[in-house]
């Protein structure tokens, strides 16, 4: 992140201070607990007092609804079926996009001619929000799986390509100088400097793509679908069941969080040389 050496020489010794009330009150874990409890109590209070009339469910009702969904079949499949339906779309769309976009981005950064051809087209499509493709995807591919996967591909393509491209361009030029001094060829430059140095940026792009992909799948499912977590939310909206809507929101948040954790795990395995900032 920062090039400053100073960031790496932070004093790690612990200072032991005597116990005091102030220190307990400003303890991070204590504050976290306080804020979470306060949040859920407030939510429960607002729901119980019907400030939004019957449009907000109590937290326990939401949990209850999720548990019930695991047991009964809702619109032909139980909870796991719905989760799997969304995840499957994400996995297919995300992988297709990543497989094309990352090499293309790297290639664009390495070759001026490819860049000159692809970049203007890419700049043309870049500012268009992926959700805007929903309608035309339905026109082209009908309401089946293809249109949903198409939207996910469109959505996750842009950040993947952009980050791969910038990752290569922003490689520290001194690294090239080093490998040239050591007698490396253009091939060595690409394989031993360019790719390893740009991997952290590529992975950052994958992370962004993944979160965009979840937004896209949700939008696609909200517009039109028969199964999936977005379908649960949409059905909750149509039948005015706030506990179903909130349940769907929690599920999709959990799924999005889990997949992003998976990608960071992969990142730590594949490029351990990435520098991180403490406490983030």
């Amino acid at each position, binding site marked *: 992140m*920062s090039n*400053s050496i*100073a*960031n790496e020489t*932070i004093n790690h010794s612990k200072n032991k201070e005597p116990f005091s009330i102030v220190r307990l009150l*400003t303890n*991070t874990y*204590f*504050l*976290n607990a*306080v*804020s*979470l409890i306060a*949040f859920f109590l407030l939510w429960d209070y607002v729901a119980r007092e019907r400030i*939004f009339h019957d*449009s*907000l469910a109590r937290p326990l009702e939401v949990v209850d609804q999720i548990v019930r969904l695991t047991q009964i079949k809702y619109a032909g499949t139980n909870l796991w079926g719905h989760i799997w339906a969304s995840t499957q779309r994400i996995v297919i769309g995300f992988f297709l996009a990543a497989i094309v976009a990352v090499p293309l981005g790297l290639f664009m950064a390495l070759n001026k*001619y490819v860049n*000159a*051809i*692809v970049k*203007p*087209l890419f700049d*043309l*499509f*870049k*500012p*268009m*929000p*992926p*959700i*805007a493709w*929903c*309608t*035309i995807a*339905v*026109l*082209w591919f009908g309401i089946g799986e293809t249109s949903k996967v198409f939207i996910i591909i469109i959505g996750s393509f842009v950040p993947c390509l952009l980050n791969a491209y910038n990752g290569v361009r922003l490689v520290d030029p001194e690294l090239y100088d080093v490998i040239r001094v050591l007698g490396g060829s253009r091939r060595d430059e690409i394989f031993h400097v360019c790719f390893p140095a740009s991997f952290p940026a590529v992975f950052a792009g994958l992370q962004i793509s993944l*979160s965009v992909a*979840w*937004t896209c799948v*949700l*939008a696609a499912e909200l*517009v039109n679908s028969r199964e999936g977590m977005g379908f649960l*939310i*949409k059905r909750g*909206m149509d039948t*005015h069941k*706030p506990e179903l*809507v*909130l349940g769907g*929101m929690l599920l*999709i*948040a959990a799924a*999005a*969080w889990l997949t*992003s954790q998976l990608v960071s795990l992969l990142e730590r395995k594949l490029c351990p040389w990435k520098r991180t*900032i403490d*406490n*983030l």
Partner: protein
Amino acid sequence: MAYKEVEVKQPLMLTILPYVSIIAFFALWELVVQTGFIPDTLLAAPSTVVKTFIVKLHDINPDGATMGTHAWTSIQEAFLGYALSLLIGIPLGLCMGWFKVVEGLCRPIFELIRPIPPIAWIPLTVFWFGIGLTGKVFIIWIAGIVPCVINSWVGVRMTNPTLIQMARTYGASDWQIFTQLCIPSALPMVFGALQLALTYCWTNLVGAELLAADSGLGYLITMGGRVARPDIVVLGMICVGVSGAIIGFVIDQVEKKLLAGIRR
């Protein structure tokens, strides 16, 4: 490190190729539609889209409003939501970066809400606020606040510790360090957030309008789909893209003016 500026003469190919590729793209698009390779019920030719645009400037059929009204509605919603998310998100993020207590209190809730895609809030906002302006501003606010908070938080965190130690040595108070050292050094990150938040806002605006609206560019796209007029759909998409690009460009220019003295 003083580098000498070297004029590199670009090959002619490199200067021509971008234009060639753009022109080829539009020509191909026009061609596949005109020759009927892709039926015009699925895709409209660029020339048709331009014609539709000119007609839509004054004609309210088939979706009930002219182009200007749609664009104005969208821009209004986007800017209200965007301004609110900046107003709340940036100070919150800055405080979270510096004050341990604020971070301890806000972070868990923030982490809880962050992974929920903003579009998922649409049903709840429809329940709570109806399909009017408030609901959409709420969704856009949720979408925009996440990058604002994260970037200003990281920005404060990335302040060079040497500078903080130096300020301490010279006897600066915590508050002085925060306002006079951490905030300026976080500014480049904060401006990065402005761009990001805008992209998020714009994306989610379209999402919100696709599902619950009675005017706006997203609504124009939906209605185009519903009456099977691909020219209107493509027109809506292009308008959304172009206006997003214009706003992004303006922010970029402002950033360059304001951050002229700060190394990025």
